[in-house]
């Protein structure tokens, strides 16, 4: 019998991965840092037409693009004269399991079936679990979803409990774990035990599946308004949503559209902390994933991550938990659409952004998700209060304190996203390299990093020297 200790299993990770995703990542390796990203995406992914065909088979995609006229009216009411862009929303909740994650799951599960795997496994506490479970049930495969669910008191985060319920509804086995990064270790053990396919969010399949989202929204926006969106706002966590959407926009020829990432600010909370775990009201789309994955994408569950947010992000906006709850109520009351937290994060950032733009500008929020028990603001705020978090009205910009205080705006004018400069993230990216022992960058490294960060090579060298000197 194989050694099941943490250290032994982690040491076998590459061989387990290779057997479970059917991808030989060594083919694309250039150096420890660099790899041939575009060749990997081309060879392993599918063309946009193939992805569309696969998604049609299981009813994924082709979701409506809806203009939020009442919210636009409200934005104009609180903006300077002539300001207040039109805001549109892509209603991804219309996908089979209720989120855009069906797009990602559809391709991975199709691939698993084609390669002859008997089942699929996904490590996720998010909507992706339900998406994989739903697609697996459509294609007749077994499914296991591994979730980080509860703290050491055995108390589960309501949103994650709901996502687990959805997985079970679609026929998946849900393995619930307590807090800790060793989820990955257990995930590897399960892959080894079952021989199932690793339906990772971060393979080229997982990204190719999202490209149709960007492609569709560009086509829809042109048909409704006669032009491409000026901005597309994407809730950012692991980077796949942003990467896939941006690539889809480019494939549609929407080269001038700016791609904005939006995350809930959870700074100060440690993501692997047992005590902090149930002191947050958002389980994804937050900075606890958004920043680490942007600055070190290859921390994911595959050797080379296909989701590389900094390649595509034009701007990064942070919003607070209280603002997103406020906007969640707003879209229900003003637009008659009750939707889950993820899309409302980008909607909050979009409202803030739209106030600064001229009236003829177009901002598209590119996702929604289903909502209900566990996910609603009432469920999350009740849970926060039970866990000792204070909930009050006020100016979030001045008073927000993740884990301690949730501040709900007193008026729409207090919806104000904070911009996190991309250069700060780029510097962190280089710090991550230094942390991993890199002291010199080869010509190949520089070329790769330049594409990864969208920064000139001389600027990278300058920044890297500074990082090595000052840490």
């Amino acid at each position: 019998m194989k050694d099941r200790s943490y250290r032994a299993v982690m040491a076998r990770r590459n061989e387990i991965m290779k057997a479970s995703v059917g991808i030989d990542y060594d083919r694309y390796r250039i150096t420890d840092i660099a790899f041939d990203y575009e060749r990997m995406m081309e060879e392993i992914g599918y063309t946009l037409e193939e992805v569309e065909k696969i998604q049609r088979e299981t009813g994924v995609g082709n979701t409506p693009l809806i203009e939020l006229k009442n919210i636009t009216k409200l934005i104009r009411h609180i903006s300077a004269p002539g300001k207040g862009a039109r805001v549109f929303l892509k209603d991804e909740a219309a996908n089979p399991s209720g989120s855009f994650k069906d797009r990602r799951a559809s391709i991975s599960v199709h691939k698993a079936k084609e390669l002859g795997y008997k089942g699929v496994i996904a490590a996720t506490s998010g909507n992706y679990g339900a998406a994989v479970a739903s697609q697996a049930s459509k294609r007749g495969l077994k499914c296991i979803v591994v979730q980080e669910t509860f703290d050491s008191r055995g108390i589960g985060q309501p949103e994650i409990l709901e996502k687990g319920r959805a997985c079970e509804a679609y026929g998946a086995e849900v393995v619930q774990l307590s807090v800790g990064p060793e989820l990955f270790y257990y995930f590897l053990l399960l892959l080894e035990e079952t021989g199932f396919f690793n339906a990772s969010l971060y393979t080229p399949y997982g990204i190719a599946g999202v490209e149709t989202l960007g492609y569709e929204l560009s086509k829809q926006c042109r048909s409704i308004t006669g032009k491409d969106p000026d901005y597309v706002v994407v809730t950012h966590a692991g980077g796949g949503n942003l990467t896939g959407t941006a690539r889809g926009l480019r494939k549609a020829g929407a080269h001038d559209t700016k791609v904005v990432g939006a995350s809930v600010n959870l700074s100060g909370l440690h993501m692997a902390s047992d005590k902090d775990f149930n002191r947050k009201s958002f389980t994804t789309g937050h900075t606890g994933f958004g920043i680490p994955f942007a600055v070190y994408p290859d921390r994911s569950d595959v050797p080379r991550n296909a989701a590389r947010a900094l390649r595509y992000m034009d701007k990064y906006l942070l919003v607070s938990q209280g603002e997103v709850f406020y906007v969640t109520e707003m879209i229900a009351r003003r637009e008659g659409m009750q939707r889950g937290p993820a899309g409302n994060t980008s909607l909050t950032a979009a409202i803030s952004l739209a106030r600064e733009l001229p009236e003829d500008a177009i901002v598209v929020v590119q996702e929604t998700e289903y909502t209900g028990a566990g996910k609603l603001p009432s469920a999350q705020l009740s849970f926060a209060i039970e866990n000792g978090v204070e909930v009050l009205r006020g100016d979030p910009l001045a008073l927000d304190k993740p884990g301690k205080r949730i501040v709900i705006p007193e008026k729409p004018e207090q919806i104000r996203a904070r911009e996190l400069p991309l250069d700060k993230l780029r510097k962190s990216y280089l710090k991550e390299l230094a942390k991993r022992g890199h002291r010199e960058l080869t010509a190949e490294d520089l070329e790769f990093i330049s594409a990864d960060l969208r920064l000139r090579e001389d600027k990278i060298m300058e920044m890297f020297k500074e990082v090595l000197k000052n840490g």
Partner: protein
Amino acid sequence: MIALKAKKGQWVQIHKVVLNPEERAPQVPEDTKLVPLVMRVKGYLIDEEASVGDLVSIETVAGRKVVGRLIAIEPTYTHNFGKHVPVLAEIDREFSQLADSLNEGEEK
């Protein structure tokens, strides 16, 4: 009435310690290092009969056999819509009033 004993084939939930505190990953923060990594999973009971707290075997829906302590018989979902949250009711009322005033502004 909660059944005290589970019978073979019944839907149950088990738990199991995956890693003891001293076996946890080196990068884990201090508070997490003090507690074990615990796993819960549901499935159909393989044993003839068992009580909560017993070590049992189950078969999961994915067909795996897993051994662990029985913690629940026919477990239910406990998450819900939450309580009445006054602050949300307050916002909702403000949005309705705001809608009225915006509509009036248009009619004038």
